[in-house]
């Protein structure tokens, strides 16, 4: 980027942000407007990284090249921002809202703070990630593709909380019959990895980008042994190997190989439902429910254009991971799979949370 280009965009950004916007055109044209992409998290989290990656690309692809700014509205584990978005009406199409697994899980678990309804909103884009669980070198030596030899070991795991995304690994380990004691209250997966590196925890999991950046070097150095990925979804909704980690078995494979772990029945259904909501469809972008179709189409086309960029695979794999981005109808289908958990699966998880961790959500 040249300096003049930088200056021009800076000036445009400042003027637009100051609210001196040009009059709106009749058809969908965002010239001179500022799109606000609201994220219900702080500036520092993964969702911020995700939105900041897409924002400039979206700006180039939308008609009229509006400025896209990411705004942050953290609070109450993202339920505050989602409750706020529920109240928003269509204005001139300049509002986008992003959610993540942390917004989906309280919704699925009927958290009392949830006053939003996913089905009222219109999704325009969805993207996912994967996750990898790994063991320390000593216990990793006992891992043979099944968890049979790990059932007598006591594990410690640094966790952000049983009702968060950590629900997926904790339930998986429990299904494998492993004895994993979570140490709650850490602030991010990076802190969990640090606890693992210090030898205080002996089992850990990271999302794909965290694993590639921080944990893969530990594996190379012989300090960690990958155990399993959560897998990825194929077009028919089956769990298959994660394309980013084709050499690591999925939890489904490990479960099948382990005595007493079943890939059917209420436990499996519950795990799979929450896995889908937390990983393959982790992040979604929405417009308000009463948005006219032409504006929805404009966003769909813009995100489509972003994913069809010649360099998209390259730039996205480094920044948000090598996973499919769903747009248009694809994002609607993704939303359906991510937010529809049948009552028995939900009840199973609620009972398990209460029994194992004493967590009650009402």
């Amino acid at each position, binding site marked *: 980027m040249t300096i003049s280009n930088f200056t021009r965009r800076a000036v445009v950004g400042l003027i637009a942000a100051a609210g001196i916007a040009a009059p709106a055109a009749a058809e969908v044209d965002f010239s001179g407007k500022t799109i606000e992409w609201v994220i219900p998290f702080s*500036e520092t989290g993964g969702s911020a990284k995700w939105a900041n990656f897409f924002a400039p690309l979206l700006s180039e692809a939308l008609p009229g090249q509006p400025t896209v700014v990411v705004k942050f509205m*953290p609070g109450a584990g993202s339920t505050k921002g989602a409750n706020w978005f529920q109240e928003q009406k269509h204005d001139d199409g300049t509002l986008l809202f992003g959610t993540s697994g942390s917004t989906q899980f309280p919704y699925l678990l009927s958290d009392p703070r949830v006053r939003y309804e996913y089905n009222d909103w219109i999704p325009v884009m969805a993207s996912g990630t994967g996750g990898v669980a790994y063991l320390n070198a000593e216990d990793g030596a006992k891992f043979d593709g099944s968890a049979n030899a790990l059932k007598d070991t006591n594990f*410690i795991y640094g966790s952000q909380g049983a009702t968060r995304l950590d629900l997926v690994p904790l339930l998986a380990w429990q299904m494998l019959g492993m004895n994993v004691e979570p140490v709650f209250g850490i602030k991010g997966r990076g802190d969990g990895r640090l606890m693992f*590196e210090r030898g205080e925890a002996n089992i850990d999991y990271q999302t794909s980008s965290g694993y590639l950046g921080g944990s893969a070097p530990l594996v190379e150095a012989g300090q960690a042994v990958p155990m399993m990925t959560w897998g990825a979804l194929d077009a028919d909704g089956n769990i298959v190997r994660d394309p980013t980690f084709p050499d690591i078995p999925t939890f489904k494979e490990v479960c099948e190989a382990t005595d007493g772990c079943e890939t059917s029945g209420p436990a499996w259904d519950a795990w799979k439902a929450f896995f889908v909501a937390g990983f393959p469809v982790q992040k979604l972008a929405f417009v308000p429910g009463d948005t006219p179709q032409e504006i929805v189409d404009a966003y769909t086309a813009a995100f489509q254009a972003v994913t069809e960029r010649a360099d998209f695979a390259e730039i996205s794999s480094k920044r948000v991971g090598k996973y499919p981005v769903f747009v248009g109808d694809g994002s609607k289908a993704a939303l359906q799979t991510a937010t529809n958990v049948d009552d028995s699966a939900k009840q199973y998880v609620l009972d398990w949370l209460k029994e194992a961790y004493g967590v009650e959500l009402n």
Partner: protein
Amino acid sequence: MDVFATALPALGDAWGLILQPIVLGYLVLGVVMGLAVGVFPGLGGIAGLSLLLPFMFGMDPILGLALMIGMVAVVPTSDTFASVLMGIPGSSASQATVLDGFPMAKKGEAARALSAAFASSLFGGLVGATFLTMFILVARPIVLAFGLPEMLMITILGLSMVAILAGRIPLKGVAAAGLGLMIGTIGEADAGGSLRMATYDIPYLTDGLKLVIVGLGIFAVPEIVSLLRQDRSIAQGASLGAGWLDGVRDWAANIWLSVRCSIIGVVVGVIPGLGGSVVDWIAYGHSVQTTKDKSNFGKGEVRGVIGPESSNNAKEGGGLVPTLLFGIPGSGSMAIFIGAVALLGSGDIEVGPSMLKDNLDITYSIVWLLALANVVGTILCIAASGGIAKLTTIRFTYLAPFLFMLISFAAFQSGQNFEDLLALFAIGLIGIFLRRFDWSRPAFLIGFVLSNPVEKFTNQAFQIASFRFRKSFGEGMEYVFSPIVIVLIVITVASVILGIRQAKMIMAEGEVQSGSKRAPLVFLLVIMAYLVVALVNANMIPDYNMTDKIIPLVVGCVALFCCVVLLIQMMRRPEGDAIFADKEIAGEDANAPHGLWSTLAWFAGLIAATWVVGFILALIGFLVAFFRIRAGSSWAMTLILTACGIGFMCIMAGALNRDFPPGLLQGMVDLPWPLK
């Protein structure tokens, strides 16, 4: 020597990258933007970086780094203006600076305090960078040696600084710290998610109170209200004494203190998970302990400025270690920084363990860009300090409305809720009464800041330790009593013993007269009532969530015990005893021409009007009414000042893409920005 063989060429490459005119140009641009943004207390780094993010995508890495680092580096420098001149702690890095910096400004020595602070910052930054250049190569195993028990001990060392800042009645200091700790536990517990003194019906409380709000409420609000009541300038007699050269001389005379505090800053900054919250208090405590004549601390002792300021810029350097080597951000702005680095260039630079192997030249560039940005920023700040210090000679009635405007805006930015303003007001009231009755405000703030780390590290260390003890007794002991822990215990014990012996000499609130029993007694009873309610509330948490209730219970009981002892002492001692300290009896506050409540009503009015018509409309009304009625200005003057205030607010908020608190009106009618 193997290490040097790779390090020296990388260092050379780094300087090659940095010393290009265009890189330096971007660095200066970043510094200037950082200084401009830094005037907002409690917002600077994060807001500025968010503003830059859209431009980072695909940008040449070294240019992007220069721009971002220029901006981040000067925030701990530029927020010194607010903390010294106005007594407003901009961030956790400048809290301890307020203790002696602001009293210096009141004595008319603002320029001296500022330049001593800036010289120390600059030096600290350079010491930090030099130290890091060597240390970063061997840092990984050392950082990993700091486990949970070690972090807990450092937190407790920070907490032990309460002993030195407790004031004349140590029990009051301990109770104040206990109250701070208890207020820090409000909200959803990190470990089990239990609610403490909060309900889901008030979502605001479930997130707990933000440090910015508590810092502003405890330090800034009481000082603003007090000065406004006295209707004078900040500098007594509106005259400026010592100039900026004196400050630099002060720093030079205390260079060894500056060196030691810089080292403290880097070392504590290096440990991930602690951030900057304890550094400046440890440095302040160290400054007090190593000063022979302690009688001036809290009243404008220049060493009390040099110590914390030397440490806080060095800490920024130290904080790069966990950020770059482990990918774990030490602060909010560092977290955005990590995200932004991934956007740079072709996305090759991955913050994390590979930084040393693959990008050592970039790593060194970052370290030295930070140092260089410090130099540029400091020189600009020193150059400006003489002029800006003149602010302290203006009649305070003309400054106060702008300060109310600034702190309200800063408070709102921390959570974007109207409740932020209410919380600021409520904490401000606590601050006013702590100050009035000579309860140590620094002790309260230390308690609040360290509340979360104390609880988190205690629970986690306990859980892992019991896991180790179950394996074998030896392994448990080895984990809990590592050599580092033992050293830290020794330092803590020594600092508590020294602190208790010295505390009586350090009066953070200056001389306070004592008077009748009634008012101090009522305040004590109110605090006790809160503690009892909080204790009952914590006790209602079910036992399986022991992690969520144990710390509030233990701390609450200790604080309540102190209060009970104080109550007994108050009943037995005669009126006029030091325990009945009350600023309304004699001194500046008592002789002020304006009353406390009528002055506070102005601030309350601003908040109430905001609730109805939104911030900007309320602010217009507030400024006009204030200048016209309270300050007695002419209409022309009133309108000019109001326009300046509103214009400044809109330009800054517009540039930073920030909203203002909306009111009921905005809920009914759609208004254009900035009214919306």
